[in-house]
């Protein structure tokens, strides 16, 4: 009998020890982009070394695969503990459906305002609630090749008129002035939205994106008309409406084109392609407006509202570590445009700081995140149809407004 009691007590002690160690160890599921593996993997290794009680299982996806997997997980109520997402209407889906943790109180208590860029925090906030840990703050500016412009005696345009004049000079010298591609719509949209900013002004542009004013407006019609005019003048690559952005971006790096609108990641693309990013210069698209605003978007890590308290706390810890100033400084060569205040710069990404400075002067959320996705689809369709002369600019504007009306009826 005594032996039985001893055995039972021993078994109970072992079970108790296991329970204690199981409670101490937290396992997290973390979904992100596979093309960031090169720095996310070592960052997570650093984190786990410093936090042996937290195990992070990272799964990397391609862009579209991540969006699909998150949607499927949302339908099955099986979202990971933390995940990468873009802002705007791409990230708001999870917030609107109560699937993300509200980080407002945590941010206030821990003073995130002094860690993260104000614009990044703002772009990660929905309905007054901070819904993600800011990761990247990307501003998109206009690039041009320094040597080519010097050779053609083209100065960096300060006004819209100067910009148009430079397009003429480039075309006359057999250089494709505007390096934009239309497949999937988002690359050409970068040009469309700076034209909208030019014709509608900052307040008008914001109202259009907020669906407060009609898209059947003179500013929208003028935007489409200008795009069509430039297409008719042959300012875009041949067949650009169906070209993949990757094709145009690769071609741009090799030279022979004028302007392209890209984000801070473009330095990395240049380096990967064996080109020198310093061969290009950046400047804000001359919208003739004050302030001159940059198209921008934030990337963030959202934390699942469904996770248990211990897991949620651990997930926030992981997100803060990955996005924190020390980690950014250590991995700055590959990190991209961090959302932290006073982020260091890398010699391999010389345009990141100038772009970060520009976005500080003023920014608007990029169109395909600012608008509902159904309206974005109609914007892309209308842009294509105007350029292909299937619709007039007025018809294009009207079609977008129809999509807006339909969205609002839901």
């Amino acid at each position, binding site marked *: 009998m005594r032996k039985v009691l001893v055995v039972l007590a021993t078994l109970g002690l072992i079970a108790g020890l296991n329970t204690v160690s199981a409670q101490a160890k937290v396992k997290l599921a973390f979904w992100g982009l596979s093309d960031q593996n090169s720095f996310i993997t070592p960052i997570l290794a650093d984190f786990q070394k410093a936090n042996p009680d937290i195990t992070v299982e990272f799964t990397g996806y391609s862009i579209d695969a991540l*969006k*699909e997997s998150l*949607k499927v997980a*949302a*339908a*099955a*109520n099986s979202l990971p503990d933390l995940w990468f997402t873009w802002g705007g209407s791409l990230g708001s*889906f*999870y917030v609107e*459906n*109560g*699937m993300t943790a509200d980080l407002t109180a945590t941010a206030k208590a821990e003073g995130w305002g002094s860690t993260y860029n104000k614009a990044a925090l703002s772009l990660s906030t929905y309905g007054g609630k901070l819904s993600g840990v800011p990761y990247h703050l990307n501003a998109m500016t206009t690039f041009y090749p320094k040597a080519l412009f010097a050779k053609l005696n083209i100065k960096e345009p300060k006004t819209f008129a100067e910009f148009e004049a430079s397009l003429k000079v480039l075309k006359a010298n057999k250089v494709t002035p505007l390096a934009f591609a*239309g*497949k*999937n*719509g988002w690359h050409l949209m970068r040009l469309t939205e700076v034209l909208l900013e030019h014709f509608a002004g900052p307040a008008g542009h914001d109202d259009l994106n907020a669906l407060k004013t009609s898209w059947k407006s003179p500013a929208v019609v003028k935007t489409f008309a200008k795009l069509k005019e430039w297409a008719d003048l042959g300012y875009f*690559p*041949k*067949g*650009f*409406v*169906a*070209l*993949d952005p990757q*094709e145009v971006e690769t071609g741009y790096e090799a030279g022979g084109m004028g302007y392209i609108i890209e984000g801070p990641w473009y330095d990395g693309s240049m380096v990967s392609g064996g080109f020198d990013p310093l061969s290009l210069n950046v400047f804000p698209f001359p919208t003739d407006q004050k302030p001159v605003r940059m198209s921008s978007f934030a990337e963030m890590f959202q934390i699942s509202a469904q996770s248990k308290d211990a897991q949620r706390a651990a997930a926030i810890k992981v997100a803060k570590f990955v996005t924190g100033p020390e980690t950014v400084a250590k991995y700055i060569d590959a990190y991209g445009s961090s959302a932290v205040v006073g982020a260091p710069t890398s010699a391999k990404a010389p345009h990141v700081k100038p772009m970060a400075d520009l976005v500080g002067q003023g920014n608007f959320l990029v169109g395909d995140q600012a608008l509902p*996705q*159904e309206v974005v*689809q109609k914007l*892309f*369709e209308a842009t*294509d*149809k105007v350029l*292909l002369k*299937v619709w007039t600019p007025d018809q294009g504007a009207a079609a977008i407004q129809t999509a807006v009306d*339909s969205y609002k009826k839901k």
Partner: protein
Amino acid sequence: MTHRFRVLKPWLFLFPAAVIYLIVILVPSLYTLGLSFFTWNGAATAQITFVGWDNYIKLFTEDTVFQLALTNTFLWTVGSVLVLTSLALLLAVVLNRQLKGRTFFRSVFYFPTILSGIVVAFTWRWMFHPEGVINGFLSLFGLGDAAPSWLADPSLAFGSVFVTSLWFGIGQPLVLFLAGLQTIPKDPYEAAIIDGATPWQQFAKITLPMLRETLIIVLATIFIGGMRVYDLIFAMTGGGPAETTQVLASWMYYQTFQFNHVGVGSAISWLLVAISMVVIVPYVRFSTRQAEQ
């Protein structure tokens, strides 16, 4: 007992496959059918609202892209059935003869079938590029300036992707026809030659009737393949330019994953199923009955 077991035996062998079919196909299909009568954004925490036939009605009355996608899917399927079947049969008849290099040519025509759709799509995207090999070939004849932007021109984009699908899809029906041709004995042909039948008469009166069962399978598989085309469209044009190459499968993807209209996406998927069943089921039953007669 023995008799009952003998009766049950075939069903027992079918049982594992039936379970998999039930779990992987039937239950999700019925779930999707149910979803098509609701409005739902796809989030487990979101409200699901019953809307009856609303999703279906709006597709036909308000969604202009769906209407175009339906037309495109119809054209694609009919085109695939007519062109692929004819081409594959013609090639099979030629490659069934004793000619030099027959094995080589059979491999060449079958080769595209073993590639993945995405690889094919990207290869042909580059071929159709404004500065790609096709326009490069045209410029050899002084047509460089007039060479079109194949995937950017709404009047050419759909046809260009369709041509890609012909190259990609010819292998499988070709192999099926070759197999069918090789089961046809030589005697009827010899008798026909003696009776003075022309090559065309031999083809029409002997080859085609004896290939009936192969034809049933080929037409059915090409039809179903045509109805569910997606990868070539998505990778080559993304449904553009200006949504002119959208088909039902690609538009279903956009509705479900881009716009979070799960109910609408489900409705599109069931319309695809319904159209397929309406054509395929009677066709296969009719053809099978004819073959048995």
